[in-house]
């Protein structure tokens, strides 16, 4: 078990290293650095000003050296200022200018995540604040999605080919075939517009007081989450994931229901609800459990679209902003977080598997 964990963590570190290097390489292409200089120092600055800006901010060293700086294995760049003070990567991160006061190396290994150029703030602060917001969103998504998906899947898989199965399967396929950017827009038009959809009807019937039923913008959820401002983003993500998990649950359930021991139980006269709940369910949940776990990193994709669509500043939104503004260190941190999330959920699913299926051993 310990060896297994150690191997998994080793893989995680290696993947993170590879991924961050790819991201680092792509964000440090000369054209990208030029964009960065222009967004930082003014979009109309000349080529000479771009060069001087890059030089003064340590971007003109070889790419590998700077990747090493970011990791913390190479000493950060320094330069003496005209007024006698020192500046450099570590001086700026620690916000000091006294020569010799800053540490030599200041990268990931030393606990410095760097500075976000887009937000002019510490990357660690930006990421934690935004991850927190996404965490709340994901929590609600899972609370809505998992029970719904399991219920739909189990009900559909209980009696393969029945009318319930056909209609629930159609629903599941439709929901998983609708990407977030479609369902989100449809939801807004249907439920959050005072001109079209059902809100004008409800207003004319006197059912609701405000102009719209749900809010088509989740910015206010940042301060206070209400049912009305959080419903649409949660449903948009949840519906998409739900269909997929429900399909897997259904497949798993139908397979279990054809097993010999289920037939034996029926022959012995066990009632149908009892068979489903006590004999079939646990075995049928093994596959969906893995899928739900794998679904979490997959949902991070959807989060980018949904958070931008509903202007909810979470992790996906930060990823979008960082990519759009070539915010190098923020993108790197975001990729580290993404790797950790993917591998951590896989780890949980592997370990959880053992408890659900005693025949499998981790060693």
């Amino acid at each position: 078990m310990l060896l297994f964990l150690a191997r998994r963590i080793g893989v995680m570190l290696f993947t993170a290293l590879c991924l961050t290097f790819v991201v680092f390489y792509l964000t440090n292409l000369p054209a990208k650095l030029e964009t960065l200089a222009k967004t930082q120092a003014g979009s109309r600055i000349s080529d000479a000003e771009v060069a001087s800006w890059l030089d003064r901010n340590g971007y003109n060293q070889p790419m590998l050296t700077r990747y090493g700086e970011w990791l913390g294995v190479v000493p950060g760049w320094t330069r003496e200022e005209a007024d006698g003070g020192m500046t450099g990567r570590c001086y700026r991160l620690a916000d000091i200018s006294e020569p010799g006061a800053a540490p030599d190396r200041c990268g990931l290994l030393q606990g410095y995540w760097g500075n976000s150029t887009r937000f002019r703030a510490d990357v660690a602060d930006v990421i934690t604040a935004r991850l927190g917001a996404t965490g709340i969103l994901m929590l609600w998504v899972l609370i809505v999605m998992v029970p719904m998906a399991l219920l739909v899947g189990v009900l559909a898989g209980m009696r393969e080919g029945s009318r319930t199965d056909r209609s629930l399967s159609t629903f599941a396929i439709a929901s998983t075939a609708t990407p977030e950017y479609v369902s989100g827009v449809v939801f807004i038009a249907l439920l959050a517009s005072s001109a079209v959809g059902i809100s004008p009807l409800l207003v004319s019937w006197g059912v609701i007081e405000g102009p719209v039923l749900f809010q088509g913008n989740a910015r206010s959820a940042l301060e206070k989450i209400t049912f009305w401002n959080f419903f649409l983003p949660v449903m948009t993500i949840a519906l998409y994931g739900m269909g997929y998990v429900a399909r897997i649950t259904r497949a798993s359930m139908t397979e279990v229901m054809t097993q010999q021991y289920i037939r034996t139980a029926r022959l012995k006269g066990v009632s149908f609800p009892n068979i489903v709940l006590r004999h079939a369910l646990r075995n049928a949940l093994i596959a969906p459990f893995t899928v739900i776990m794998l679904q979490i990193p997959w949902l991070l994709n959807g989060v980018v679209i949904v958070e931008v669509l509903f202007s909810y500043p979470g992790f996906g939104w930060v990823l979008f902003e960082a990519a759009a503004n070539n915010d190098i260190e923020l993108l790197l941190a975001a990729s580290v977080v993404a790797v950790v999330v993917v591998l951590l959920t896989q780890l949980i699913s592997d370990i959880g598997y053992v408890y659900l299926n005693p025949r499998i051993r981790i060693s």
Partner: protein
Amino acid sequence: MTDQKSNAPKVHHAAKRYAQECRKGQLSRREFMTRATALGVAAPAAYGLLGLAAPEAKAQTPQMGGTLRIQMDIKAQRDPRTWDWSELANVCRGWLEYLVSYERDGSVQPVLLESWEANDDATEFTLNVRPGVKWNNGDDLTAEHVAHNIERWCDASVEGNSMAGRMSSISEDGKLRDGAIEIVDDLTLRLHLSSPDIAIIVNMTDYPAAVVHPSFTGDDPVANPIGTGPYRPVSHDTGIGAVIERNPDHTWWNEGNGAYLDRIEFVDLGTDPAAWMAAAEGGEIDMTYQTTGDFVDLLEMIGMPATEAITAATLAVRFNQDNAPYDNVNVRRALQMAVDNQIVLELGYNDRGTVAENHHVCPIHPEYADIGATPFDPGEARAMIEAEGLGDHEFELISIDDDWQAATCDSVAAQIRAAGINIKRTILPGATFWNDWLNYPFSSTEWNMRPLGVQVLNLAYRSGVAWNEAGFANAEFDALLDQANGIPDADERREVMAQIQQLMLDEGVLIQPYWRSLYRNARPNVLNAEMHPTFEVRYQSYGLS
């Protein structure tokens, strides 16, 4: 802001002449206001020259208190003189004020200055600092502080300091020229210009010209909010929003004439107007910073009436003359002739503006000369392109993926195509576009308005200047422009201007299809928040009824 002492006895002689013309109907009142106030005539006095009383500034006085929520981009702050977006300035307007301001009626009003006078040939300007203005740290505003700010503006060694270009008549070698500022006393200073420059005061209304305290260093006016205005920042989160509140520890010089709101919340909802729409429907915003295209009507439909500002803002669909085949004047002129600007206005900007004439001088500019427009003749255009041997050449028009900018370029390209000339349209996302936008051979640039016609020409078309992405370099043009810059009298200047405009047409510098009107939507209970021609959000004078 109009309670200054009258300086009517010393009215500039040119201003009196303008007044006569205005009464004769040769000059619109708006043009008269811009010209007269630029020469240092106070607005009430200027109205007086016309025999009119100054209009009441406010029809309805807002009540004190309340919170206003405004949709606007919140960008990472930096040193004010390097601001490149009006949004950056708008956040800080509550505490960083300006020496002078450009008003919706075209006049230039004193703010931290009480008044100013120009000498007859516009080479010497006397600035009188408003007495009794205090910084919110308790210091008095003095002529020395103003001089310090002007010196900051002149420092061209700071990357992206766009004020340096505006202050060229008092600069030398990229910094303030020795002896250009003479501090007469605590509240008076005199600018000695190296060449006549009628635009120097008007330039101080531009958004990077915010007046900062002498202790201000670094690049974050939000972290260090020492200013003269009645508000102070509470929070500022890039990309998310900013909150401003009335400063209870500071007595504003203009107390009682504004600062009605308790709190202003800027909300950054991204660049997609559909998201603003959703927020407006949900009652989360009270006004937009600027609304474009169909959303003006859509927001009106949900109970947020629009206000309009007629401006000289435009989209310059420019050729870059450093790139073949646009180094050939016949090619440029042919492409101009293939495009009917009226159609571009209708299709590209929903007819919300006025047709322009390809020379980037607007009828609302005081020195505009009506010299007619480029003829529209697609047949001739095709013939000229073929005569240059480019019958099979595929032109390429590159634009950013912004809604109206892309639509405008689409309709330009469609008409060129209709004339039988091959053209390809390329639309780039913002992140890619800005990287190389100065060098695209055929592309478009959004230009905001400047109060005087010579100002944009100085910034954008003079040989070798930073913002000249048209690559236009013409000695005759530069010489004429120099000449125009030294003529304070707009009528005399118009004669030179006619030559300049004609030169722009002869050289086929750009396709400049229309002048944009700008719109903003706000709820009916928001007062004094009409759209401003230079995008100002002066929330210190906004209020709720």
